[in-house]
């Protein structure tokens, strides 16, 4: 199997079954949250040594009275945010063949919150700015309708455009500087050439590229409220992944965003829009690593069905299914994991062995398929028991799984005659160095052994070896026995831990960072909100957006 990592291809090509790289680990594992204060994944799921998704233990010990917030690092727009913002602002799209360098993640979600931007990114911003300016300037200049010497007209246009581009009113000095750019472009008067320059500048400006969360500091206070415009931006980028629209900006301009009822009104408007559902589809995709499908490689000789078209079809199925659940099942997390149907397209239908000439709902034998955890997309991204177990542990239970220690040899042992793939991984549960982590992960993955690397159902391994899909789900000092994927999923969905983790994950997306101890109350509130709204993930997101915490930042030096 050709894995994403450039690795021991020769050894792995020789081995059958295509099991993922073994992980091994040492020591005992704390239950629940992890000891490390900033636990979380910095790398994709595929055995690349990243840590799990734990985060600090954030059960609040004192009642949540004081407003507290973890530190908000300076974030650069993610690729999706950039593209959406540009489309809404300019009415043109970027040439999507040219990709920005990969966004940095905080846990599961793209964030660009801590790394320094590389030269490639800054270079791409320049290329994108010039292309977009060239594309959009003629249309924008025509619409602006400013005569060549009419400075008030130009200032008016710049004021309203700048407000949308920078997500806040331009300062006087900025306005003057941009008028000067216009002048510099053509001595004879304001022209489209000037507009092009201004667009190029604004699209490369830090005020455009970064989320600069202006706030009003009060002496001695640990947290500060965001300015109305900064709050409008935060709401809009959380729920719609784009810059605030005219109505939201107006509410900010007119000082109405200080009023809790107004915020609730605006959030309701945003949440009820299809754009919020589109955002939530992407949130769930990132949460479950489905966007890693792009770089997940399987040996083409063993899996000829796994083409680029199939990858796209797998993702499409999951996106369609999530969208369906959001629109038709009240965004219920329970439905996400337990629905006995999916939204199947003709290409991915091949993996299900069903006839499907168009995209639509297909009901399955619930013994074989249950919700998104049995989607080919997720099963392929994880392509084996260890990574499947790890995904459940880190992404669904928010636990931290450290990488194997340096001293351990993680090469797969060679197959012994008659061994099942499960037996081959026995070293994990027998060796004391491995057991601590692997008994948490592997059994959960074995529950899915009826699905091969591409997520196709199989009754046996190979032609006749029986599959044992039983195991224990270890939660703290509890052990829940399960037999097979369906049984495991049903039990998982009942656990407090899963619900709590969902709240944490969505909050991570909302804040685009990992939580710290200071966020304990905020997380608790989100978790309660999910319960209160019958597991409706959209309503929970609305509660997060309307919370006081969301409108504040931690004051930093």
């Amino acid at each position: 199997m050709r894995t994403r990592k450039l690795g021991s291809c020769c050894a792995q090509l020789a081995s059958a079954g295509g099991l993922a790289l073994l992980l091994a680990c040492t020591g005992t594992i704390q239950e629940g949250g992890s000891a490390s204060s900033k636990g979380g994944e910095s790398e994709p799921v595929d055995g690349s040594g990243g840590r799990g998704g734990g985060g600090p233990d954030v059960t609040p010990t004192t009642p949540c009275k004081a407003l507290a917030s973890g530190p908000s690092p300076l974030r650069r727009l993610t690729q999706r945010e950039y593209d959406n913002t540009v489309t809404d602002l300019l009415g043109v799209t970027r040439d999507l063949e040219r990709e920005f360098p990969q966004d940095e993640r905080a846990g599961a979600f793209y964030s660009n919150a801590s790394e320094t931007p590389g030269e490639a990114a800054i270079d791409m911003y320049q290329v994108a700015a010039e292309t977009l300016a060239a594309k959009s300037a003629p249309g924008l200049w025509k619409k602006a309708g400013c005569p060549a010497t009419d400075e008030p007209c130009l200032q008016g246009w710049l004021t309203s455009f700048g407000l949308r581009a920078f997500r806040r009113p331009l300062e006087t000095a900025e306005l003057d500087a941009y008028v000067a750019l216009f002048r510099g472009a053509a001595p004879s008067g304001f022209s489209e050439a000037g507009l092009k320059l201004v667009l190029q500048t604004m699209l490369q400006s830090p005020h455009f590229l970064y989320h600069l969360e202006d706030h009003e500091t009060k002496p001695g206070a640990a947290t500060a409220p965001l300015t109305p415009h900064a709050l409008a931006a935060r709401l809009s980028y959380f729920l719609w992944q784009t810059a605030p629209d005219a109505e939201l900006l107006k509410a900010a301009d007119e000082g109405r965003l200080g009023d809790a009822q107004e915020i609730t009104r605006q959030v309701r408007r945003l949440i009820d829009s299809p754009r919020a559902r589109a955002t939530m589809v992407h949130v769930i995709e990132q949460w479950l690593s489905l966007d890693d499908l792009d770089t997940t490689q399987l040996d083409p000789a063993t899996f000829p069905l796994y083409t680029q078209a199939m990858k796209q079809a797998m993702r499409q199925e999951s996106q369609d299914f999530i969208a369906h659940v959001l629109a038709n099942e009240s965004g219920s997390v329970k439905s996400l994991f337990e629905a006995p149907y999916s939204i199947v397209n003709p290409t991915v239908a091949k993996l299900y062995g069903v006839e499907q000439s168009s995209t639509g709902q297909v009901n399955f034998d619930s013994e074989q398929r249950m919700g998104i955890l049995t989607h080919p997309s997720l099963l392929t991204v994880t392509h084996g028991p260890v990574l499947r177990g790890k995904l459940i542990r880190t992404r669904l239970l928010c636990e931290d799984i450290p990488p194997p220690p340096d001293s351990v040899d993680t090469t797969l042992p060679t197959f012994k005659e008659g061994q099942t793939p499960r037996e081959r991984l026995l070293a994990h549960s027998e060796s004391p160095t491995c057991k601590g982590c692997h008994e948490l992960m592997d059994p959960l993955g074995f529950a899915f052994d009826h699905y091969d690397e591409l997520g196709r159902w199989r009754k046996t391994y190979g032609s006749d070896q029986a599959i044992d899909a039983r195991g224990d789900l270890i939660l703290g000092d509890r052990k829940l026995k399960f037999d097979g994927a369906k049984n495991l999923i049903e039990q998982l969905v009942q656990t407090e831990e899963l619900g709590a983790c969902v709240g944490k994950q969505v909050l991570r997306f909302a804040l685009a960072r990992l939580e710290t101890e200071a966020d304990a109350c905020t997380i608790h509130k989100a978790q309660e909100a999910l319960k209160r709204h019958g597991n409706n993930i959209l309503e929970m997101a609305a509660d997060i957006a309307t919370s006081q915490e969301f409108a504040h930042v931690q004051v930093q030096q």
Partner: protein
Amino acid sequence: MIKSNRRRSVASRRGFLQSLGATAALSPFLPTSLVSAATSVAPKRLIIYWSPNGIFHPEFKPDGGESDFRLRRVLQPLEKFRSKMLLLQNLDWQSFVKHPFENTHSIACMSLTGTAARQTAPGAPVDAVGPSVDQLIAKKLNRPGFHDGLVTGMSTYWPHSRLYYDVNGQNVSGSNSAVEVFRKLFGQLQKPGQPDPALAARKSVIDRVRLELQAVKARVAQQDRHRIEAHLAHIRTLEQRLTAGASLTCDPGAAPLKDATSLPVAGAAMLNLLALALKCDASRVASFTWLGPGGAGNIVYDWLSAPGRHHDLSHGGRPMPGQPTYESLVKIGQFHAEQLATFLDTLESVPEGEGTMLDNSVVLWTSEHAGNKVGSDDHDRRDVPFVLFGSAGGYFRTGRLIDCKGRPHNELLLSLVHAMGFTSEKSFGDPELCSGPLPGLT
């Protein structure tokens, strides 16, 4: 970089050459309007030409004596360059002997660095611990705004090709898009003799962006300041490119509008663009990597009617002449040789001083292991192929076959550094493996 899956289209040789000639910018022949860089002494250039999975040893290894060497089938397409080539046999990756590591394709990181390999955690990438020869020389040339150290190739996923490392130990990614590389090299070009209003305009944009970044830097939290500083540094690089680009006096012709989807056509276009970059002095050190090591290079060369995937073929034992595996490997090797020959032709066609641009350059063709060498294992890091073309302005005494008798390849890499004019360097890569350049080359 384009994130595309290339269709390896089956094209006949004739079709391939026709499509090469179809677009002026993709032509193997340089536009005649090109004005060469007006220097009194032509600069020296280094090009790395890297192919995966070894160069098929049974039909690669040259025979014969120092000057009367005989080229086998793979090197046949390069016969006309015999007086300008240096064939180096029995150069070993002593870095691998001294620093043993799991012998996977990841060890390719030693190819141009001569250091140990390191892996920070299981599953993490395997990396060298020092710069690659191209990046070191690029740094020493110190021409801000120019494109020394340009990395190109046909990879669609650059993390697979961990061959190039800068002086800070960072892996360097490249571009597989001629459209993008052309823009990078020539996007800031001025028409000779005319002040370009666009240049002033671009400068005013950069100036304003810089001002805004500086204002933002003063406002952000202490912990984030270094990130804005990094951003500012990159803006400075854009500005340097503007100035450097403005100093170029060549006419590169029309920019390519679209990248070819077929590997041989796209590869040829990129090589042609590199030749242009050298000619214009936009770059003096560049690399072209067909595909990354091992599985990353595991394609079918179907346009050659060479069945089998390259990586798998290279592990197909010791095939005999006439067998399909053997013939496929020969064809693949010849393909790489032919493409190289075309590139060398282009360099040769540019008169420079008393010779040609090829004479002032050195082109290194190498790969990751000895390639199905009889009597050795599949990933043999001894007798790794290294072939030089061009004398780098008279530094190398070419037209010879040299038996390096197991010397470390670090010494060759140091020779390249010296050839490019940096003769005060005492060592390259692991210093215990290298106390001087490779003897016998000059």
